[in-house]
């Protein structure tokens, strides 16, 4: 049998994936699952989901999950964690959910240093609604609302960097990428450790969206390398 070992916390029946071929979410959910397994926190972990492709994650984990409206996963998890302080609360959301419609909630959750972990998936556009520009769309990027690269903003939003001035000393803010799984995994682990120590954490993950990027396998890697040159992986706080 050559099938790769799945994290225990992922449902064995969750294959085949209902993400698009080449989507980065499969990697991200798997890495989160591995960290949950290794830290042996699954009996006390809950997953908060936003709107966007992330919500499909409810199919994959043997964990309690709740889905909020777009951008509201951070305040919902903040309330949850305050209500059950022994729990581990992990939210998964996209760049639109976190940096556009949910930015207010995200900033204040970081500012209040709520002990929750947010995994923010950055694929530079709104994927589930068909590839509109998002706060992480880079100047000149073509999306369905920036045809020919028109109407893009002078600068994208760098989420972890934006939160850094309001984040507490113990908060963990980092950016990883699906192209470097070991580092991504170490960031997610540090983020949950920060939560266990009573602090806020955000890991932005630069991901793939071949469907909306309209890229084949090779071009997907090129596109994501370009994204990585704009969104530099590393630890921003903590």
């Amino acid at each position, binding site marked *: 049998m050559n099938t790769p070992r799945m994290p225990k916390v992922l449902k064995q029946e969750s294959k085949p994936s209902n993400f698009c071929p080449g989507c980065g979410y499969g990697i991200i959910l798997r890495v989160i699952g591995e960290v949950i397994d290794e830290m042996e926190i699954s009996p006390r972990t809950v997953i908060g989901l936003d709107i966007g492709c992330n919500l499909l994650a409810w199919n994959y984990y043997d964990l309690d999950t709740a889905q909020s409206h777009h951008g509201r996963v951070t305040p919902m998890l*903040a*309330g949850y964690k305050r209500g059950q302080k022994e729990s581990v609360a992990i939210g998964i959301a996209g760049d639109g959910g976190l940096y556009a419609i949910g930015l207010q909630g995200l900033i204040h959750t970081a500012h209040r240093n709520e002990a929750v972990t947010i995994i923010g998936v950055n694929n530079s556009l709104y994927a589930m609604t068909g590839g509109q520009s998002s706060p992480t769309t880079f100047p000149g990027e073509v999306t369905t609302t920036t045809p020919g690269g028109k109407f893009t903003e002078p600068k994208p939003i760098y989420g972890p960097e934006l939160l850094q001035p309001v984040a507490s000393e113990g908060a963990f803010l980092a950016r990883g990428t699906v192209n470097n799984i070991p580092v991504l995994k170490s960031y997610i682990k540090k983020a949950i450790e920060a939560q266990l120590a009573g602090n806020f954490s955000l890991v932005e993950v630069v991901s793939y969206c071949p469907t909306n990027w309209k890229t084949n396998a090779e071009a997907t890697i090129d596109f994501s390398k370009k994204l990585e040159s704009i969104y530099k992986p590393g630890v921003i706080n903590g």
Partner: protein
Amino acid sequence: MANNTEKKISSGVKPKKELLTGNDVLLRGAYAAGADFFAGYPITPTTEVLTGWANAAAHDSRLEFLQMEDEIASGFAVIGALLAGKKAWTATAGIGHVLMQDPLAVAESYRLPFVMYVGQRGGPSTGTVIYSQQELTLARFGGNGEGLRIVYAPSTLAEMYTYMHKAFETAWKYRFPVIVLGDGYLSKMQAPVDVSAKLPKVKSTPYFLNGPIKNMRNCFSMEEELVEHLNFMFKEFSEASKEIVESESYQTKDAEVVVFAWGSVGYAAKVAVAKARKDKLKVGLFRPITMRPFDSAAAIKAVARAKHIIIAESSAGHFGRIIRETLAQNTDAEYVRLYKPAEGITAEEIEKKIREVAK
């Protein structure tokens, strides 16, 4: 069993009474129910609920307090806390109530015991900061769904206590969101009130980390899936409604003039009816206590002998539309509208109208 009652107007000051504002009374009702979590955002006229809870939480570590960045976040924090098993609630008004309908829609879909007090203020938009009865439709049917929530409308400070407590009871028993729909006058007024009644603490249980894995999702891929979910909820709502529905019919048995009023105007109407009765006028009052579900059977019964129906409300017809729809096939009485959008209606005004109509 519908709860249609006739309550006596209390007079005189009882020794057990305390001098409290409506917002104070709400807090007492919530404490009595065992509420232990509040998330909110300041807005007149309900800010003192937020500050009052903050003060209490500062001295009692069992009470969780979160001042959020807006009402949407407040409502979602309440949702999170409910999933964790907290008896969580919030209070808001006016434009904050508009934003709060966003999380309330989730609570409706998830069948969460979301409890909220609304102190209606004048609208549209920022309006006035104190009073109206213009948020009735929003409370009943706000959100992008079917309005599967319970709306209690207290009419006095004493009822603010009873129904704030009852909101938690009903919410946790039936798992539908519950709104206590007051107004700025009820929130801000100060008067002697008895809040000494010992009421039972409400039992709560966490939704999560509590047995079988739960996936709380309100996103449906197929129309058929959603319809199935909705039909199940309609059935449960309709069954619960039979037990939940409440109203007061006062002096309606032989009434030829029936006043329809609710909330604080409902109490003014009752005082007016009591005064007119002293002059042998055949007048009565129908006052819904649950604005949703609505006690249609009692409303229809109340107009059995009615020749005139006076609808008194501080809006231009939010309430009147419910009444006319409910009574459509059941009365030939003439409708008299005493509509004062975003303005108070005194007992004297209602009494004057009764005497005009009864001539």
